[in-house]
């Protein structure tokens, strides 16, 4: 039976997916497909690879059922999986060491629910992009290297030709600044 609608919650859709309901997967894809694809494209910089990764992420959710609702939201599961698998691909592509079994069984970190999970993907994008626009370009660049490219602090220091201690201090400071900018929303 097909009782899912665009107003169904993520949890309802996930339950539908577990029961093999393609309508539930279609709705979840409509809700998060652009978010996952955008992030995959940002990390990998290649449309075909981003498409493959998006497919991998959604089919992982569908077939392997690795998502645990008690550990966080569907959106966080999808974005964390996209980032970690994307960085994995980057590292393979660059013939570097594969990401250590850091994501292992869980593949994602627990995050807070609450207000952040109650707003739409578009609102989250607007709020985060507004907060990021208040950072200086250099600060944004540090976060981008760490988050989208998955570089370690040592690799960032090497790339920017800065002392490791300086990179650590600046990256921590910019993360805390972003925390303050998003203070009332997370």
């Amino acid at each position, binding site marked *: *039976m*097909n*009782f*899912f*609608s*665009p*107003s169904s919650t993520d949890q309802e859709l996930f339950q539908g997916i577990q*029961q*093999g309901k*393609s309508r539930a*997967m*279609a709705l979840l*894809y*409509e809700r998060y*497909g*652009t*978010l*996952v*694809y*955008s992030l995959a*494209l*940002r990390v990998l910089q290649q*449309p075909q690879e*981003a*498409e493959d990764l*998006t*497919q991998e992420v*959604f*089919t992982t959710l*569908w*077939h392997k059922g690795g998502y645990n609702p008690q550990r966080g939201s569907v959106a*966080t599961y999808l*974005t964390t999986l*996209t*980032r970690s698998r994307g960085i994995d691909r980057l590292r393979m592509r660059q013939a570097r060491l594969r990401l250590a079994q850091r994501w292992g069984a869980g593949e994602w*970190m627990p*995050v*807070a629910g609450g207000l*952040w999970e109650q707003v739409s993907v578009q609102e*989250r*994008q607007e*709020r*985060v*992009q507004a907060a990021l626009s208040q950072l200086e370009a250099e600060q944004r660049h540090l*976060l981008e290297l*760490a*988050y*989208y490219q998955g570089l*370690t*602090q040592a690799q960032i220091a090497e790339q920017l030709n800065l002392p490791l201690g300086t990179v*650590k*201090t600046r*990256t*921590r400071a910019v*993360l*805390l600044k*972003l*925390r303050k900018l*998003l203070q009332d929303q*997370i």
Partner: protein
Amino acid sequence: MNDSTEELLAGLVLQDLSAQEWEEWETQMANDPALAQELTALHTVWHSLAYGCEAVAPPPSLKQKILATAPARPRPWLWGIAALGILSSGGLGAWGWFNAQQLRLAQRELQVQREVVAALQNRDTQMVTLTGRDTAKGATARVLTGQGEVLVVFNQKLPKPPKDQVYVLWAITKDGKKIACGKFIPNETGVIRWANPRFMPNAPNVQTLAITQEPDLRDAPTGPMVMGGSAI
């Protein structure tokens, strides 16, 4: 919270703590377990960067590629056969069987209601109301059409047709042509659903709908009209 604690939290999220900082963190955490909450919030900020990149729509074909990988699941009727096997093996007594039937009916009704609500919530859904005549006087039916599906929602005043007869829903076009959409016999849930109807009642040239009583689904109506619809 002081600056050094904040720095430790940020270092934890960024996974760049030194051995000395790890020791500091463990000491602080032991004294103030509430720090875990702040750590969770900072993790959320870190993960919020997923929303920081420019939104790009994926290629339209990707959705179908993903949906085409649907895992094979046992079909409902197979569950029915399995359930029948359990019942026939004497696993449940008559009372248990009766309760299971009641529960299944209640679950089915709930599911049907949710489908109707979902259809009504969908802005693309079109609805036509039909009112009963003669033997079905006082009966009303609403035909909800959208997303390739049709729901016929009727009240309890619509009687079951005589034996060997069915109701047929017709779409009547602007030039008077009558096209059968599907056949049904009223059930206990008050809702009939067609996932792939013979003809969509919301096709562009359809002017109104009607329900007649027929021996079976046919190309043209021959039996009496049971319900008539308003103009679309």
